[in-house]
């Protein structure tokens, strides 16, 4: 009898759990009782909807950066201290995420568990996911003056769609890296390429890769094979529309240059311009470049710092050049890093105040002046600083600063925002073409079909 009662109770519990799960599925939006929700979490009413955020700047918040603690601990501790001094009663706990390839998934899981850090450094894919689910504060609503310090082009591109498809400002543009060519002058000379004259088109760059393949004969290579490092950045630079304007369908196969690009990649791989074992490797060129086995390094200006620190002999042979502007006619610098405020924050006024403090012109300029970093600010006042206007020095480090400062004046910051799954689907097909298992035409066609299938279900 008792056992039967217990079984009955357990069944009820299971049914209740299932019902709860069913309720969870329909979550999101506002509750009928007037209380506010963000994503699936109960939050303070002021955090969502219209109206400026008000309240005392008092309370403890968590601030999360991505892989910055090791190199910039001193700077950020100073910023936090200054903020706490300016706002007695406010406390900031700093945590640093390693920022690996599971970052978006982990951050989304944090958001679903209502444990998102109050102020968080996010990249574009993470910001897209969090904004769509309503986990981030709409900053331009919560502080109408928030846009003022930022370069208009950066501010304009710092929007993401919410659940209704409306573009909102859920992020503050923070720092940006720019994009450039880094190369080993000795290896370029061996291949008969003039390091002082970088190509102006991507296919021109590919032609140089081909020369390196012929000269290297397997002893050294032009670059890494995995197309994941080039998609969609190369296509953006060539002004190929990877996705439709609403982001709901793939369109890259409609442009014949995409097939030409894949054909070039297949040819270069076959001819030995890239290490064969790097086709599906997660290794970027850092290691092989530092060993003098790859002629072209990463396009990230901070890569120059990496080489300087880890391989002084290769740094001595390193030069930098402008990334080919190709059909776009200006640098496709990609999206900057962003700072967001969680809508689930229990101390949203503190979080918003800290986010604005961290990204203000004074703090951005100070960080960019760090001698060990090549990053650029997103605030107008910072870019006017003589540090960025009058760059001197012939070393690769200084040259990188000068090149990026020049390009950022009119750079395109609208990098195509591909989801990791869509990117993997496209890259997989290109890899098959590079291995000769598919023709470039078929690979591009199949890549578009696979991408569309994922976009349709998303």
């Amino acid at each position, binding site marked *: 009898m*008792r056992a039967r009662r*217990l079984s009955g109770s357990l069944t009820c*519990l*299971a049914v209740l*759990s*299932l019902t709860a*799960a*069913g309720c*969870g*599925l*329909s*979550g*999101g939006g506002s509750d009928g009782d007037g209380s506010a929700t963000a*994503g*699936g979490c109960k939050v303070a009413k002021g955090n969502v909807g219209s109206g400026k955020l008000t309240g005392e700047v008092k309370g403890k918040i968590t601030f999360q950066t991505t892989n910055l603690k090791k190199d910039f601990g001193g700077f950020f501790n100073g910023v936090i201290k200054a903020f706490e001094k300016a706002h007695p009663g406010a406390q900031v706990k700093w945590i640093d995420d390693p920022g690996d*390839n599971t970052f*978006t*998934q982990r951050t*989304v899981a944090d*958001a*679903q568990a209502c444990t998102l850090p109050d102020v968080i450094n996010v990249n574009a*894919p*993470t910001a*897209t*996911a969090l904004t*769509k*689910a309503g986990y981030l504060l709409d900053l331009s609503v919560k502080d109408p003056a928030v846009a003022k310090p930022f370069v208009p082009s950066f501010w304009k591109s710092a929007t993401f769609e919410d*659940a209704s498809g409306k573009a909102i400002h859920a992020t503050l543009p923070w720092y940006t890296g720019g994009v450039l060519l880094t190369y080993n002058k000795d290896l370029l000379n061996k291949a008969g390429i003039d390091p002082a004259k970088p190509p102006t088109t991507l296919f021109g760059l590919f032609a140089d890769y081909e020369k390196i393949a012929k000269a290297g004969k397997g002893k050294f290579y032009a670059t890494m094979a*995995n197309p*994941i490092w080039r998609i969609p950045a190369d296509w953006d630079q060539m002004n190929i529309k990877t996705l439709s304007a609403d982001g709901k369908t793939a369109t890259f196969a409609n442009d014949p240059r995409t097939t030409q690009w894949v054909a070039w990649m297949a040819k270069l791989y076959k001819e030995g311009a890239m*290490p*064969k*074992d790097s*086709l*599906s*490797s*997660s*290794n970027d060129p850092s290691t092989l470049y530092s060993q003098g086995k790859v002629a072209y390094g990463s396009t990230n200006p901070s890569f120059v710092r990496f080489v300087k620190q880890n391989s002084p002999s290769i740094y001595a042979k390193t030069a930098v050049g402008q990334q080919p502007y190709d059909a776009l006619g200006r640098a496709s610098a990609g999206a900057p890093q962003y700072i967001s405020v969680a809508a689930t924050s229990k101390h949203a006024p503190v979080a918003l105040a800290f986010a604005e403090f961290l990204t203000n012109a004074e703090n951005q300029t100070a960080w960019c002046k760090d001698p060990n970093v090549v990053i650029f600010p997103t605030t107008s006042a910072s870019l006017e600083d003589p540090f960025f206007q009058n760059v001197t020095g012939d070393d690769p480090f200084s040259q990188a600063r000068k090149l990026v400062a020049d390009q950022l004046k009119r750079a395109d910051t609208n990098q195509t*925002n591909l*989801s*990791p*799954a*869509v990117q*993997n*689907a496209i*890259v*997989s*097909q290109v*890899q*098959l073409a*590079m*291995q000769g*298992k598919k023709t470039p035409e078929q690979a591009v066609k199949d890549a578009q079909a696979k991408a569309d299938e*994922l*976009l349709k*279900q*998303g």
Partner: protein
Amino acid sequence: MVTDTVKPVPVPGTERTTSVPGTTPSRLSRLGRALLPGPAAGANGAALYRRWWLPWLWAAPAILCAAVFGVFPFLNTVLLSFTNAKPLGGAASFVGLSNYRRMLGDSDFWLATRNSVLYAVIVVPLMVLLPLMLAVLVEKKLPGIGFFRSAFYTPVLASSVVVGLSWQWLLADDGLINTWLQKAHLIKQAIPFLSDSWLILLCAMGLTLWKGLGWYMVFYLAALGNVPNELHEAAAMDGAGAIRRFWHITVPGVRQAMMLVGTLTGIGSLRVFTEIFMLGSYTGGPGGADRTLPFYIRDVGLDPMTGNAGYGSAVSVALFLLTLGLTLLAQRLTKEDES
């Protein structure tokens, strides 16, 4: 004359403790007595131990954990598989069996299933036998054998990142293995361990075996302790060699442990992700040809921007059924073998 009266012996579990008025033990003290390790003074301990709810109380934490972290997520996954839910939540609607229909017609699903099953079919028998052989070797009490036991166990302790980097270094075109083979003039061109999809899959299996050998060796060392040495001695006196003794004494003696290792390895093999990721990176090998079911679930179900948690859940249910089916098959085969 004093007549001795025989006190009735209470039937255990039916007696009622009498109490002096005003000193009735509180519910709390009764509970305390029930929970204490031994019977309380003056009480019938056996009776207290027979409280119907006591076993449930002891088991409650484990049941709760299993329910919260096992049963509930599983039921939730089954429920989600009939919806078009998104990884980030939001409105979801019932879609019936359409996720299952899509799954059965998706060539990528079948490719991932083939890879997962192939992984299990190759890894499980090797993982059942190789650690047993290793355990038999290091079981002997020889000077310095502790070093070998530790050495074989070391890969278990190594972090995945270190293991991944080490294997990439070993298997690269200019890595240790290819360099040795080329210097020994055994090959002219590097073997494409990291760019051929079949070789990536086989190397990932090797990595799983390498990491698991030491772990399961310890299982078998414990099991071998229960195999009577007299059986080996008697068989040896009857002229049985080492190999014959291994198959006819050692193997039957550790059958239960083999069953356990087989089941655990089977489950692990069907769910393999890390090894493929280490060697095949984001796409799961060139062209995604080495993707296993967890890879496929990640791509179609977990992507925060384009994932469909409903479809991912349907594939997860398929993975569960596959795991369950293979486990039951293994159990059945073992029972038939025993009978």
